[in-house]
């Protein structure tokens, strides 16, 4: 054992001397007259302290105090030993903060176990090493940057909380890898239940990836999909669609309750075979004149609670006013009229302030003079102000691809649609390609907080698209997508961790959003919309000023499954020395401080018991 400050050992001389002096010096004693000292003779002989050596003889309290002084002096001399220890120079601790970490299959929860493991890791880190903490939720967040301050790391760890969202581990690992770029042999420690596909393609640079797995397999059932749609055959009636999933190895029966504004209005029993899922439909929900909260509750007590309830908002319905600016297009007019609540007005030229009166304006072959103030579909023409770059017109081209997952392309098959004439375009940033020919995009979309535009660069009559079943479906989808911020059904459903854009009509600069747990968040308004991305809790969010509501649901199959995957550690992908053993200094003063506290406690007990 060596000492960092060996000269501090000399402090024992004055401290010990002071203790001895205090013992040797006469104490102020209480005078007590006794009948005679005859019976006290033995006591006086054993406990009298007239001379120093007698006073100090067999005085356990003195010995304990000298021991405490010795421990104190040893502590401030900073003893250390040299030991071979693992050193990674820098460590990023990635904490899985997804909903599955809230599972209570291990006590008190998976996240608490992960927190305990991370705490132990920090405490055992070699001195001088740096560490950072990243919370892997829907978006990874750096809770604490690289630091050698263990107190700060432990405090950050203590305050870390999981969210009711999915986990984007790959992004978190990439972030951790980027943080560790300057280091030679860093490590990334992932504290997780492994409820995600193994992220093999993530480049973590020189970092060595180490998984610390928590959790056991636990039975769980949850709602993994929610949707609210207007009934196709009965306008004004809505169907609430949910998908129930469970991971049990046996067939089980569940009860799903539908609550509308705190009133139980329907319940369905669902029997799920082992490890399966099933859709459940609650039909014929008629909206009232105000937004109402819909809640589907799964009557089941399992390891994860936040996926047992799904939320939706049932908004009032109204007519959809569409202005068709066209010289005549039967196909288009028919397709637009297919929607039962759509009222189509046809004009030859666009009137002034059309967007204040109509929800959607469709420009068929007529170029709007200026960017429309509202939702618009522009067909067969290419306005100069639209953020695309026009390419050379082409003839007889064929659709080669389309954006399958875009809402406008739902149930739409555009395979081999032929275009006799088209002007392909190159989208600028912010513009999303929906349909492509081999030369470029022929249908794009642009979304702004308060308006949405669709641009079809070819004349639909010069293609076989109107003859396809896909055309009316696509137009219906387009109307629904364009009016989504206003229409009921599609609006107000946000996946947990997703971005919610809150429309804010009027002159508000700031709005307040009431969260499901009762807290309130203040949001800045930009261009009549307030983006909010901290949708970390499932439930109903409500804007205090405008009354706008939206529902956040977990709807993540990976989270509901509560799978526990024990991934093996991965060596660094880049050439690096890896984790190595270094001859490091291990200080012992903390142990001495603990021992000193114990000795002081013993001294206190001895003093009060008069040993």
């Amino acid at each position, binding site marked *: 054992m060596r000492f960092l400050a060996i000269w501090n050992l000399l402090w024992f001389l004055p401290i010990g001397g002071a203790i001895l002096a205090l013992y040797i010096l006469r104490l102020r*004693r*209480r005078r007590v*007259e006794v009948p*005679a000292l005859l*019976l*006290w003779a033995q*006591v006086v002989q054993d*406990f009298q*302290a007239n001379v120093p050596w007698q006073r100090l003889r067999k005085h356990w309290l003195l010995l304990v105090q000298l021991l405490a002084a010795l421990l104190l002096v040893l502590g401030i001399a900073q003893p250390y030993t040299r030991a071979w220890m693992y050193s990674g120079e820098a460590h990023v601790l990635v904490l899985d903060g997804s909903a599955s970490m809230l599972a209570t299959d291990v006590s008190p929860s998976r996240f608490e176990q992960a927190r305990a493991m991370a705490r132990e890791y920090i405490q055992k880190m070699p001195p001088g090493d740096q560490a950072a903490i990243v919370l892997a939720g829907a978006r990874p967040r750096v809770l604490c940057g690289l630091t050698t301050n263990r107190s700060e790391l432990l405090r950050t760890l203590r305050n870390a909380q999981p969210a009711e969202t999915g986990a984007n581990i790959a992004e978190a690992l990439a972030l951790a890898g980027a943080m560790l770029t300057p280091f030679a042999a860093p490590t990334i420690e992932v504290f997780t239940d492994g409820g995600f596909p193994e992220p093999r393609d993530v480049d973590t640079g020189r970092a060595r990836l180490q998984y610390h797995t928590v959790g056991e397999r636990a039975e769980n059932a949850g709602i993994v999909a929610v949707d609210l749609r207007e009934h196709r055959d009965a306008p004004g009636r809505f169907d609430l669609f949910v998908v129930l999933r469970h991971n049990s190895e046996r067939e089980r029966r569940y009860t799903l309750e539908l609550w509308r504004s705190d009133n139980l209005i329907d319940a369905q029993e669902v029997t799920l075979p082992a490890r399966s899922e099933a859709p459940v439909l609650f039909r014929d929900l008629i909206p009232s004149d105000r937004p109402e909260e819909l809640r589907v509750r799964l009557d089941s007590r399992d390891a994860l609670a936040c996926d047992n309830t799904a939320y939706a908002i049932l908004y009032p319905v109204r007519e959809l006013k569409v202005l068709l600016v066209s010289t005549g297009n039967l196909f288009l007019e028919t397709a637009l009229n297919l929607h039962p609540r759509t009222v189509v007005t046809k004009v030859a030229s666009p009137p002034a302030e059309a967007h204040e009166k109509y929800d959607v304006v469709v420009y068929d072959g007529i170029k709007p003079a200026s960017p429309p103030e509202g939702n618009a579909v522009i067909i067969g023409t290419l306005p100069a102000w639209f953020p695309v770059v026009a390419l050379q017109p082409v003839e007889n081209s064929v659709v080669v691809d389309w954006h399958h997952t875009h809402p406008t392309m739902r149930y739409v098959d555009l395979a081999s649609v032929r275009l006799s004439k088209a002007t392909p375009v190159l989208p600028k940033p912010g513009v999303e390609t929906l349909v492509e020919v081999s030369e470029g995009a022929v249908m794009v979309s642009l979304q702004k907080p308060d308006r949405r535009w669709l641009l079809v660069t070819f004349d639909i009559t010069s293609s076989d698209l109107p003859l396809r079943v896909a055309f009316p479906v696509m137009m219906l989808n387009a109307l629904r997508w364009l009016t989504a911020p206003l229409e009921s059904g599609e609006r107000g459903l946000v996946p947990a961790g997703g971005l919610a854009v809150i429309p804010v009509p009027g002159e508000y600069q700031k709005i307040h959003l009431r969260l499901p747990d009762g807290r309130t968040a203040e949001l800045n308004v930009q261009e009549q919309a307030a983006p909010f991305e901290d949708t970390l809790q499932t439930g109903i969010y409500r804007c205090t000023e405008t009354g706008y509501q939206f529902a956040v649901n977990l709807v993540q199959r990976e989270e509901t499954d509560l799978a526990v995957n024990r991934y093996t550690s991965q060596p660094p992908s880049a050439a690096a020395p890896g984790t190595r053993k270094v001859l490091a200094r291990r200080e012992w003063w903390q142990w001495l401080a603990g021992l000193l506290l114990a000795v002081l406690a013993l001294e206190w007990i001895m003093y009060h018991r008069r040993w």
Partner: protein
Amino acid sequence: MTPGDENPLLEASFLQRLQRLQLLVRRPLPGQWKGEHRSPKRGYSVEFADFREYTPGDDLRYVDWRAYGRLDRLYLKQYVEEEDIYVLLLVDCSRSMRFGQPEKLLFALQVAAAIGYIALCRFHRVSAGLIGDGNVLWMRPVRGKTSLIPLLRFLGNPPEAKETALPRAARQVVNSWKHRGAVYLLTDLMDEGWNEALRALLAPRHELTLVHTLSPQELHPDLMGDLLLIDSETGVTREVSLSPAALSLYHRALQQLRDGASALCGHFGGNYLLADTSQPLEEFIRREMRLRGVLT
């Protein structure tokens, strides 16, 4: 005037209850006058003791004529003599006896007065001696109930003494008091020469009863911590740090003192009684002393 009116030592009602008691003295002790205690002398009571041959001059009334008829020799019948006894009450009046709550000296004087009154009721000759600073303050022997008032007056004015010097006082008692009798010593034995003093008193074959008078503060001292102990008699001081362990040493020393005194008294046919001054006087006299065979 009743004795209780003049002296606070004993109450009149208590004195009445004491009249039924008598001293239990085991060994025959010579007396002066006819009394109730068995004497080593032969005399003229109803209790037969022995025969002896007739010698001229003997009273012919005590010749056993039946024996003469059978043996043709003259034998004289002898009877046990019953006499009074000499009772000596010795009370330690040193400074240490003025300790305790209630005070040890007062308790000892009350016990001495009670024993004295019981003895006077049985027509024994009662003397008293108050010990202080190695000297004995004597009261002449008195007899009969009417002597109670002088006895109480004497016991009611103990001398202001400092130390005990018990061996010197014992030697003085032995030299001054030539009778064999029942000696009642009331002391706390807080003297290093207690052993020597007891041996001196026991040597003349007195029947010694030691009433070891201790206060509850001495039996169970409530002292703890760093103290400066002052000897009340000598003024000597000692520093001690008292703890439960130290107190156990004190208790051991006290027990050794009691055991030593008791063994010594037992060895010479005496009695040893521990008098805890916290117990009521009447309970001590009527219960404790009877249980220990001092009174009957």
